[in-house]
C-alpha cells in the first residue's frame, strides 16, 4: 500500500530525513518511535504534504501513485489522513461545516455525488458515537477552546468520518491523560480493518498498550536504525534510547 524508498527531506536547508525506507501493507499497524528530534514528525508531515519541508530525494508510492507529486488535498482524497500533534483552532468554521466541505470535496475528487444534508448528518452521528464525541462540540468552531483531549478526540472523529486507507497518528498521545488516551485508542482500534493501515508516531510506549502494532521502527538521526516486533517497544520503554544511539554510533 505504502512504499517509502530512500526518502530525504530538509527544512530551511537542514536535512532531517536522511534516507527512509518503509513498506506498509493493508491491515498493518506500524509504530515509529525515536528520541526527540529524530525526524518522526517530519516523516508524518512529509507524507501528508506539508509545504515547509523540501523533499530532496527518494520516492513514496501510495496505492500505485507517486505520492510526492500530489497536493495535500489530493493525498487526502486518495486516502491518507494525518492526525495532527497540535490540531489547529479555526474560529468561525464549525466542525460540522468543515467536515461536510471535506467529505464533499473528497467525493468530488472521486467523481461521486455530494452527500445531502440528511445523509451527511446520519453518517456523522454514527461516527460521533464511535469516539464518544459530544454533539455540542460539532456545532462549535473547529477546535476553538477545546481541551487537549477534545482536540485529539476530534482528530479521531474526523478520521472516522473520512475513512482513510492509511491513517498517520502524529504523537496523538501527547498531552492526554489516561482516560482520554483510552477513548482515543478505542476509536482508532474500532477503525482497524484488513483494508486499512495505520502508522503510529510516538515517543512513548504507553499508546502502544492500547493500539498494538505489528511492527516497531526506531528512527534516529533521520534514518530507521532498528525494526522489530511489538516487543521492541517494551525494550525501548525499559532501556530508553541510549543503547540504540550507542549501537548506531558504534557502526558509523
Amino acid at each position, binding site marked *: 500500500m505504502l512504499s517509502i524508498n530512500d526518502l530525504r527531506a530538509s527544512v530551511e536547508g537542514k536535512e532531517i530525513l536522511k534516507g527512509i525506507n518503509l513498506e506498509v501493507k493493508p491491515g498493518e499497524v506500524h509504530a515509529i518511535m525515536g528520541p526527540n528530534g529524530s525526524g518522526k514528525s517530519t516523516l508524518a508531515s512529509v507524507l*501528508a*504534504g506539508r509545504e515547509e519541508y523540501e523533499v530532496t530525494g527518494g520516492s513514496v508510492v501510495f496505492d500505485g501513485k507517486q505520492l510526492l507529486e500530489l497536493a495535500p*488535498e489530493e493525498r487526502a482524497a486518495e486516502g491518507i*489522513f494525518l492526525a495532527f500533534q497540535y490540531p489547529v483552532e479555526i474560529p468561525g*468554521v464549525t466542525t460540522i461545516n468543515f*467536515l461536510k466541505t471535506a467529505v464533499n470535496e473528497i467525493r468530488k475528487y472521486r467523481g461521486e455525488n455530494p452527500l445531502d444534508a440528511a445523509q451527511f448528518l446520519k453518517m456523522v452521528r454514527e461516527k460521533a458515537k464511535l469516539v464518544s464525541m459530544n454533539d455540542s462540540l460539532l456545532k462549535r468552531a473547529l477546535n476553538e477552546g477545546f481541551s487537549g483531549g477534545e482536540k485529539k478526540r476530534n482528530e479521531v472523529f474526523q478520521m472516522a468520518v473520512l475513512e482513510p486507507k492509511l491513517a498517520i497518528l502524529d504523537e496523538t498521545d501527547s498531552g492526554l491523560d489516561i482516560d482520554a488516551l483510552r477513548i482515543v485508542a478505542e476509536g482508532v482500534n474500532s477503525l482497524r480493518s484488513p483494508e486499512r493501515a495505520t502508522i503510529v508516531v510516538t515517543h512513548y510506549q504507553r499508546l502502544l498498550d492500547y493500539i498494538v502494532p505489528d511492527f516497531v521502527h526506531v528512527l534516529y538521526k533521520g534514518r530507521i536504525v532498528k525494526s522489530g516486533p511489538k516487543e521492541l517497544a517494551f525494550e525501548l520503554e525499559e532501556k530508553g534510547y541510549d543503547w540504540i544511539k550507542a549501537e548506531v554510533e558504534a557502526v558509523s
Partner: protein
Amino acid sequence: MITETIDLKTKLISDFHAREAVMNGEASSEFHQKKRAALAQFERLGFPSLKNEEWKYSNVKDLISASYQFNAASSIALSDLEDLKIPEQEANIIYFINGHYSSELSRLISPESEITISSLSEAYKKDPALVNSYFNELTKEDQDAFTSLNTAFTQDGIFINVPDNRTVTHPVILRFVSDARSQNVGSQPRNIIHVGRNAHVKLAEAFRTLGSERSFTNSVTEIYVGEEAGVEYYKVQNESENAYHIGTTHVRMLDRSHFYAGTVTLNGRFTRNNLNIVLDGERCDAHMYGLYFPDGTQHVDNHTVADHRKPNSESNELYKGILRDKSKGVFNGKIFVRPDAQKTNAFQSCKNIVLSPDATMNTKPQLEIFADDVKCSHGTTTGQIDEEALFYMRSRGISRPEAMALLMYAFCADVVSQIKIDSIRTYLEEVIAAKLAS
C-alpha cells in the same frame, strides 16, 4: 494638479453664490444662514491634503481633479435597477437618484403612526422650524471640509421621525443610486433621523452606481437617539470602480439608549467613512462593526469616534478587513472619555488580513481618557492568512482555494452575523462568498 484643485473648490463656491442670488428672500432664513456659514468654513478649510492629520493616508487629489455634474437629472427606471441585482424585501424602500428623492421608485409600507418618512425638501416645506431644529446640530463642530461642503449644499435627503414609544416593524432602507451612465455625477445627500424616547427602528443606507463614469457621493447623516431608544444603522457600499465616496454619520445618544452601526464596504474606487458617536447619556451602549474588502487599487478609510461624555456607558467596536492586490486600507478609531464619564467601558478592535505584499493597511487607535475610573482596551492586528490552518484544512481534502474562502468567510462571520436585517445579511453573505471565491 494644483490648478485643478483650486478649480473644483472655486467652482463649488461660485455655484453656491449663483444659487443664492436666485433664492428670492429665502436666503435670509436661519436654515440658509447655517449653509452660508458652512460654505465660509469650507472656503477657509479647502479640500484636505495629506498634511491634514485626519487625511494623512487618504489622498483626495484624484477625487477633486475631475469635475462632476451635481444633482444631474436621470431617466432611471425600475428596469435599470434590475441590473444592480437589488434584492426584493419587505421594507420601506426609498430611492435617491443622483441625490434626488424619487417618489416613483420609493415604497413606504409602515403606517405614519409608527414613523414619518419624507424627503428633506418636503419636510422643510411643511415645517421649516422643525427641520431647522435638527439640521447641522450634530455636525456643527465638525471641522471636516467635506461635511461643511455637504451642509452648504444641502438640498435633499431623508427626514425621518419615529415618535416616542413606537417600534417600527419594517426596516427603512435608503438606496442611493448614482446614475453615471453618461457623465461624471455628484450628489450630496443630507439625512436627518430623529428617534424618540423608547422608540425602536432599523435603518440602512445602501450605495450603488449605474454606469462606469465617475461618481462622487458626499453624504452626511445626523441621527438623534432618544432616551431608552434603540437604533440599528447599517451602511452597505457596493459601488463601481469609478465611485468616490465620502460618508459621514454623526450620532447623539441619550440616557439608556442603544445604537448599533454596521458599515460594510464591498466595492468602490475611494471610500472614506466617518462615524462619530457621542454617548451623551448614562447607561447607553454603542456598537460599531465594520467590514471592508478592497482589491485592485481601491482605497477604504474608516474613521470612527466614540465620545463618552457621561458616566456608566459602554462602547464596543470591531472592524475587519481583507486586502488584496494593491489596495489600501485605513482605520482610525478614537475613543474620548471626558472627565464626567466615570465607569466607562470602551473596547476597540481592528483586525486585518493582507493577502498581497503590495496591499497596505494603516491602523491608528487613539485613546484620550480624562476620567480615572474607566475600562478601555484597544488592539489592532494585521496579518496574512494562517498557513497552518490552511494546511490543516487541505490535509482533510479541502482544496486550497476552497480552504482560503472558508477561512476568509469565517474571518468576516462575526461582523456579518451582527447585521440584523435578514435580507441585507443574506445579500451580504452571497456577495461576500462570491467575492471571496473570485
